[in-house]
Structures are given as structure tokens and as C-alpha cells.
């Protein structure tokens, strides 16, 4: 066996306009032959830099300052251009994070794969084509003889990623590197890709390195784990050992933070307070010291060395120094345990705040030249179909769906940002769909929205101060002392006051999200619609934002509509769930009931699709096949039938009506999984 890759004391720096950033510092680890090694870390940890340094494809301003990367006992960093080319693609190949941007749009897949196979000089073109088609078939592309002649834009996201895997495996490399292979995919596709990678790894006896921020993915897929923080490896070891007894305080906190790990629903999520150190001037002591709950005096001044923790487990932490008297690492308790306060409001009896009935939204497609003629109706695409839901005062409704499910459109059309085609939206009994913008404006004080991108949803040329005061400028220009207002709002969301003079791009994601919360809450609205409130945030910051939102809800009796693709996150904060698929709500009801006993097969697939950060509970089955169909080509009958393993002729012919279940849920399925 032995090691295929040995990385020793790797140091990488990036030179930026503001100084040199030491992105990797003394990184060392091994990749044993035939094993899958997961490299885990949050943004800024340097996990991707490791693989770009390995393939010598660092960004232009990046430089390897020292160390070696041995592949089959030869240092890759000393390769000349020819051996490097022979190494890339043939001995080590990469599956990229985003198949949308990593495949050239103007070449067909066949051309791309023939280009990769140029080295096989003994093969004829026909043989190379044959081989490429076989590989496409192997990764599960239906009808590969035809589809291989197509271009990337003609493939769906999941198919693109499968083809990306086929291209990476084309030359049967000894090492397969996967860079966030599922991050750009939906939950149901993610499960399929994880399954495929594991299968192929076994079949081709490939060694794999998987880079991911997703602990669940790593737990599902990998044999060993390397945990990185701020450019250093803080812990590495066997996957089971590390998950069962994480040694480094950071690893432990990271695992605690993952909302998918917590099986019991808790209203408050654990977090890691603090921020990443400035990597232009890395701290003298431990990189994690500023955020570590167990920091000792020496942690601030002395850099820890790697110490053995469990079997085959190594950790860079003073707590495990066997020579130190206070080596107490093994018996550390888990981080902050989640408190479980009671519900703020007994929402079942509370009055209905928002009531949506049979809402229909469609977009105009841009038709051909005929569409320019007067009197011609342009084809329209239905984005929301017959959506009905009630939101009671004080409750939290989680709206869950994959991309293209219409969840964001629903949130926006409630606020009148997207015009409704038919149906009604009532706020405290008042019809909103017929209101003009002018009549709507006063109502907007009562209903606020938080948008997906924490930084991108803030006007870039405005200071934080003017951003959080803007609601007053619009609705209450004479609201009093503006400085006092700004400071009060900043304090409310725990935003340091000195940030008030900054611009959005000077904030971290978590800080920008707090500004978004402050803006939404400035006028003390009753309803808040939050679109992906945790998107773009690291796991350790996600909990922070959700806890803040929860605290404010209890304090002010807010009503939340939370839109997310992330079922495990939503589940922890919602009273009720509504699951959307292709513009319809297919299941809706009590959160825990749905999570534990899904009634719709799609909900079941979503729940099963969550990769759990527990290597002892790997799933064998992939319950759902295929991609989400496009809303432009809606399947007949039940829209889910093509991907449903319980589908019958009835499902193919007839669209199911919404029906109530005994526990108060509603579901749109001919054969619900429970009654």
C-alpha cells in the first residue's frame, strides 16, 4: 500500500495590493493509496489552495514558498513542463466545483474528451470515441452515443457534473481530486453524485482527495479527514475516530455547528464566535486562539506542534502536548450545548397574518419573430401554480425546495415584487395583489424582506449607517435623532458601532447579514420574509444569524417566512414546513411530523438526501433519480412522476389534488406514504 501523495511543510503565499497573504503555512499530510481523504474547512481555510498548489495551477499572484509535494516519491513542485503535463489529467485529475464554468461552452463533449485523450497515440479516433462513450455511459448519461455530441449548455447541472467526472476519469488516473464536487448541485443531485463517486472509486481502485466545506459529504464519502483552519492543518485522522472524538477545539465546534448533525430539533444552534485571523500577519501562537474556548496562556505566544490524539489521529493543539501538565484534551466536554426554549407563541390559535390562495405566477417567454407582431400572445412559463398557504402571527414557516421550485418567486410575489397572474394574497385580510405600488408603499412598513446574498443585497455605494437608516428616510422622514437611531439598530443586531461608516464590500458575510437584519427590523414590521438567510455564510456563522433572528422573534412577536434549500437548517427554526416542487406546494404541515414521517415521495427524497455528518450511518440507497425538470417543460400528470419510484399510471395521467391527512398536514400525492 503506502502513500500515493505526501505533502510536507507546504507554504503558499498570495501577493495582493494590500500585502502578502500567507494562505498555507506548514501544511503536511499523506494520502494513502486506495483511500478517500477529505479536506475540510470553512472559507479562507486554504483547502482549495492545497489542490491548486498540487497541480501547479495557483492563481497568478500565488507562489509556493517552500515544502514539497511527493507523488509516488517524486516532488511535483520540481517537475518540468513536460512531466507536469503528463501528470495532470493522466496521473491526477480534477472534478471541478462548478460544471457551469469549468467546461468550455463552444466545444462538444466529444471534442473535449478527444482533446484529453490526445496522449493515447496508439488509439485511433474511433477507439477514442468509443472509450469516451463508454465512460459517459459508466457515469450514467443516458443515450451517450447521441449526447456526447452535444454542448455543455444542452446538459442539466447534474448531467454536467456527471460528465465532468467522466472527463476526469477518462485517462484512469491514480489520483482523483474533487473540489467541492456537489456544492453547485441541488440536494437530490448531491446524493446521486456522492453515490456515483463512491462506486467509481471502488471500481477503478482510485485514490481520492475530496475538498469540501460540507462535513456531511465528507462523512458520507471519505476514509480519512484533514481539518484545515486559516491555512493550517489543525487535525487529521481516520474519519470514524475524528467524528467520534474530535480532538481540536475547532473540529469539535465545527461538528457541533452542523445543523444536520443535531437529530433533535433545537431552537438555538451552536456557533463559533469571532472571526478568521488576518492572514497577512498570522498570529504568533495558535491560529484558532482568538475563538477558542479553552485557550491557555501559551496558546497566545507559542505555536502548537502536532500531537497524537487517538489512534491514527494527530492534532495541532497545546491541550494534547503530553509533556505539559494540563494535558486535559481527551476529556473536554462538547461545546455549548443547545438550549431548547419553549415556543414563543402558541401559534395554532393565533390569527392569520398572511393568507395566500391559488396564487399563479407566470413569466413571458421571449418568442420568435412572430412574437413581435401585434395581437400575438407570447408563450408563458408557469412558475407558481395554485399555491395556497396561511401564515399565523408569531409562527415561522419554512419554505423548502430545490432550484427552480419557485420558492423565491413566492416570497417576492407576496411582497408584490413579482406580479401575480391570478389568485389572492391577503395581509391581515387586505387584498394585496390588486394594489398599485403607491397604495402598497405604506404597507411595506409592516412586511420586510431579507435577500439571499448578504453583501450583494446592500446598495454598494452607501455606508452602513445610511443603509440601516434608509427605511426611516422612506417611511418616517421625521423619526428623530438619526445618530441615536443608527446606534440603537446596530446594538440590536450586535453590530459593532464602528462599522457604521463602512461600505458593504468592507464587511464580512456575517456582518453584512446583520446589516440586512437591522434594515428589515428597523420599522418594527410584523412579517419578515427571509430568502436563504444563511446562504453564503460559513457553518460557524450560520447559527449566529439564526439565533439572532430567533431572539428577535421572541422579543417582538415576529412572523417569519423562511425560504431555503437547506432542509436541516430550516427545520431547526420552523414551526411548520411547506415543501415546493416545480412551482407547487406538494406537502405542508407541522415541521417535525414532516421531517420524521414525510408523506410525499419527494419530501422523503429530500430528507434522505441530507448527507449526515456521521460516518457510522452511511446510506446505501439513493432514493431519487434524474434531474429537476425545467418549468418550461412541465411533465404531464403529477409533475414528480418521472423521478418517483412509487409512480403508477394514475400519476402519469392525472395531477393529484391537495388533500388533508389525519394529522392536519396537506399533501399533493395520489399515494401518500402515510395516512
Amino acid at each position, binding site marked *: 500500500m503506502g502513500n500515493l501523495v505526501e505533502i510536507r511543510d507546504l507554504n503558499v503565499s498570495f501577493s495582493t495590493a494590500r500585502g502578502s497573504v500567507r494562505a498555507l503555512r506548514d501544511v503536511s499530510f499523506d494520502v494513502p493509496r486506495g483511500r478517500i481523504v477529505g479536506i475540510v474547512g470553512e472559507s479562507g481555510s486554504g483547502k482549495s489552495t492545497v489542490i491548486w498548489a498540487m497541480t501547479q495551477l495557483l492563481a497568478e499572484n500565488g507562489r509556493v514558498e517552500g515544502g514539497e509535494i511527493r507523488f509516488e516519491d517524486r516532488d511535483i513542485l520540481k517537475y518540468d513542463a513536460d512531466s507536469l503535463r503528463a501528470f495532470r489529467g493522466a496521473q491526477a485529475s480534477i472534478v471541478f466545483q462548478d460544471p457551469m464554468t469549468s*467546461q468550455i461552452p463552444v466545444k462538444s463533449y466529444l471534442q473535449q474528451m478527444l482533446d*484529453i485523450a490526445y496522449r493515447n497515440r496508439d488509439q485511433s479516433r474511433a477507439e477514442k470515441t468509443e472509450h469516451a462513450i463508454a465512460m459517459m455511459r459508466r457515469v450514467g448519461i443516458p443515450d451517450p452515443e447521441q449526447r456526447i455530441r452535444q454542448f455543455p449548455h444542452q446538459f442539466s447541472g447534474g448531467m454536467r457534473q456527471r460528465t465532468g467526472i467522466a*472527463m476526469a476519469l477518462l485517462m484512469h488516473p491514480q489520483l482523483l481530486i474533487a473540489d467541492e464536487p456537489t456544492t453547485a448541485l441541488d440536494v437530490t443531485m448531491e446524493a446521486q453524485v456522492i453515490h456515483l463517486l463512491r462506486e467509481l472509486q471502488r471500481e477503478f481502485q482510485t485514490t481520492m482527495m475530496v475538498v469540501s466545506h460540507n462535513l456531511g459529504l465528507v462523512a458520507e464519502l471519505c476514509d480519512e479527514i484533514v481539518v484545515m483552519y486559516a491555512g493550517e492543518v489543525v487535525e487529521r485522522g481516520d474519519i470514524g475516530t475524528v467524528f467520534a472524538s474530535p480532538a481540536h477545539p475547532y473540529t469539535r465546534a465545527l461538528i457541533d455547528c452542523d445543523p444536520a448533525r443535531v437529530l433533535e430539533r433545537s431552537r438555538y444552534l451552536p456557533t463559533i464566535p469571532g472571526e478568521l485571523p488576518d492572514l497577512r500577519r498570522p498570529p504568533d501562537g495558535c491560529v484558532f486562539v482568538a475563538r477558542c474556548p479553552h485557550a491557555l496562556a501559551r496558546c497566545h505566544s507559542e505555536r502548537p506542534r502536532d500531537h497524537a490524539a487517538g489512534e491514527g489521529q494527530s492534532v495541532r493543539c497545546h491541550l494534547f502536548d503530553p509533556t505539559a501538565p494540563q494535558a486535559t484534551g481527551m476529556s473536554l466536554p462538547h461545546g455549548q450545548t443547545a438550549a431548547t426554549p419553549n415556543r414563543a407563541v402558541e401559534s395554532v390559535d393565533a390569527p392569520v397574518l398572511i393568507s395566500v390562495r391559488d396564487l399563479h405566477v407566470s413569466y413571458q417567454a421571449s418568442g420568435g419573430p412572430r412574437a413581435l407582431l401585434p395581437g400575438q400572445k407570447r408563450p408563458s412559463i408557469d412558475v407558481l401554480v395554485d399555491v395556497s398557504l396561511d401564515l399565523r402571527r408569531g409562527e415561522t414557516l419554512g419554505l423548502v425546495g430545490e432550484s427552480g421550485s419557485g420558492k423565491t418567486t413566492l416570497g417576492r410575489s407576496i411582497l408584490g415584487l413579482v406580479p401575480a397572474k391570478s389568485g389572492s394574497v391577503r395581509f391581515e385580510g387586505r387584498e394585496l395583489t390588486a394594489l398599485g405600488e403607491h397604495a402598497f408603499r405604506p404597507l411595506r412598513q409592516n412586511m420586510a424582506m431579507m435577500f439571499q446574498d448578504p453583501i450583494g443585497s446592500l446598495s454598494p455605494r452607501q455606508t452602513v449607517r445610511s443603509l440601516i437608516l434608509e427605511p426611516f428616510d422612506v417611511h418616517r422622514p421625521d423619526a428623530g435623532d438619526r445618530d441615536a437611531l443608527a446606534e440603537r439598530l446596530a446594538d440590536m443586531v450586535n453590530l459593532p458601532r464602528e462599522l457604521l461608516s463602512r461600505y458593504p464590500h468592507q464587511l464580512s458575510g456575517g456582518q453584512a447579514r446583520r446589516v440586512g437584519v437591522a434594515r428589515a427590523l428597523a420599522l418594527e414590521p410584523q412579517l419578515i420574509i427571509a430568502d436563504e438567510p444563511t446562504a453564503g455564510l460559513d457553518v460557524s456563522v450560520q447559527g449566529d444569524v439564526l439565533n439572532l433572528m430567533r431572539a428577535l422573534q421572541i422579543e417582538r412577536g415576529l412572523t417569519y417566512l423562511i425560504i431555503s434549500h437547506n432542509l436541516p437548517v430550516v427545520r431547526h427554526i420552523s414551526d411548520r414546513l411547506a415543501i415546493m416542487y416545480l412551482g407547487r406546494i406538494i406537502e405542508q404541515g407541522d415541521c417535525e411530523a414532516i421531517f420524521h414521517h414525510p408523506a410525499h415521495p419527494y419530501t422523503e427524497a429530500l430528507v434522505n438526501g441530507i448527507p449526515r455528518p456521521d460516518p457510522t450511518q452511511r446510506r446505501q440507497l439513493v432514493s431519487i433519480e434524474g434531474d429537476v425538470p425545467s418549468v418550461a417543460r412541465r411533465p404531464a400528470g403529477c409533475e414528480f412522476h418521472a423521478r418517483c419510484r412509487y409512480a403508477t399510471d394514475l400519476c402519469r395521467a392525472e395531477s393529484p389534488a391537495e388533500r388533508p391527512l389525519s394529522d392536519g398536514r396537506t399533501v399533493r400525492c395520489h399515494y401518500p406514504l402515510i395516512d
Partner: protein
Amino acid sequence: MWSYFCKRLGLSVVIVLCALLALFLLLHLIPGDPVKIALGTRATPEAIARYAEKMHVHEPIYYQFWIYFTQVLSGDLGADVFSNRSVTTIVLEALPSTLILAAVSLFWAALIGIPLGCLSAVRPNSWFDRLTGVLSVATIAIPSFLVSIWSLLVFAVMLKWLPVIGAGDPGDFWDQVSHLILPAFAVGLGWVGYLARMVRASMLEVMNENYIRAARAFGLRERTIVFRYALKVAILPTITLIGIGFSGLLSGTVFAEIIFTRPGVGKLIYDMVMNRNFPVVQGAVLVTTAVYVLITLCADLVVAWLDPRVRDSL
């Protein structure tokens, strides 16, 4: 693809129609008698009478436009005020010389500019790239009519290497070529820089794309990556630019034709402006606009056909 073609063709027709309308209205919106304005003060009474009858100047204005429109559609662009020759014939006689000048200028500019841009982009910030960059900016910054005058001064007047004026003897091919060299140099020079910069910029942009990094990660040869991957994508905006920039090129030929006293549409328009012979100006401007629109259309269609994303989405 078909619907795109129809849309694009429709747009081109609309643009030419707008040009037609503008040229017509220009004459009628200026205070004064349109006939006198169009024909100037030196026109003979016969010419004025002919023009007034042909354009139905005593009818309502929309009817006059309809008459003008149907005449243009049937290929009749009017008649020269002084010689009464058909404007269509005059313009068509002048057009080939202008098209040859424009085509030769663009051809040599592309032949040098595109490879320069590629080579610069392959080694950004090398001495070669910096030199190309400075030269490109310099060639873009010097107005083409100044290049014409200065090259006339240096090569024709001072050094006497090349002929000064005219297009050369119609029967003598080499004489024509020698008369083409200086104008083509002057018209094309700015385009060398323009194309070099354009190709370099889009190449650099493409070379930063994820799929180029992916191609490197798959161990493709650098030659393949630069010429068969990056250039294939980067050339698309350049083609569009060449199409659109034809307008600039036509302006360039106007000056070159005047300075080198070379017959062509530009020289024709200038002479007729000086003679206040508006019908010829009107006809020549219309033809120039139509040629320009046609070339832009072709460039757009070529791009649409080369890019599978566009090809499918249309």
C-alpha cells in the same frame, strides 16, 4: 437560428428605412424652400423644374415621402443636379474603389493586429506585450486623416517613393496597387492597434476562465489551450467589433480618398457637398448606410453561427 436571422434582418431593414426617413426629413425640416436647399444656388431653372416635378414638391409631405420611398425601392436614387446623370450609376461607379480600399485596409490590419494581440496575451506583461501595448495605443490615438497627410508628406512628397494622387491607370494592375498602398496604410494603421488590443483583452479574459484552468488540469498542451480553446472563444467579440467598426473604417476612407484624391464614395460625397449637389449626397449616404448595416448583419450572423450557445438559444 431562423428566428434570430429574421429578427436581425428586420432590424437592418428598419435601420435603413430610418436613414431614408432622416435624409428625407433633413431636407424638409430646414426652414426655406426644400428645392433651393437641395440644389443650391447654382442650379439651372431646368434642373429645379425637373427636381420639383420628380419629387412632387407641391403634394403633401407624406405623399412626397411615399414617392421618394418607391423610387428608392425601385433603385432610382434621383439625378445629378448639373449633369442629370442617374445617381444610382454615379454611386455604383464609385463604390467598388471604396470597398476595395476598406477591405484591403481591414485585411492587412487583421493580419498583423490579431496575431499581435494573441502573442501579447500569451505572455502578459512581457517586454513584447508592453511594446505592443504602447504601439497599439499610439496607432489608435493618431487620427487616420493625420496619418494620411503625414504619409503623403513623407513617402510621396519628400521621398517620392509612391505616387501622390489618384487611383492609378485602370488598365495597369501594378499601378493601381502602388496607388493603393498609402491610403490602405493610413486607413488600416489605427485598426492594427485596435484589433491587437481587442484580441489581447478578450484572450486574457478567456484565459482567466475556469474552463481554461480545467483544460490545464487535464494536461492539455499549451498550444491546444491557446489556439483551439481560448482563441475560439475570444475571436467572437472581435468579429462583432470588426462588423460594428466598419463605420469608423468608412469614415477613414472618406479622408484618405479626399487627401489622396482617390475616386470613391467618400470623395464623391465631399465633392458634391462642396458643389451643393444634394441628390447625389443623399443617394451616396443612403448606400453607405446600407453597406454598413449589411456588414454588421453579416458579422452578427457569423458570430451566432460560430457560438453554439447563441446558435441554440435563438
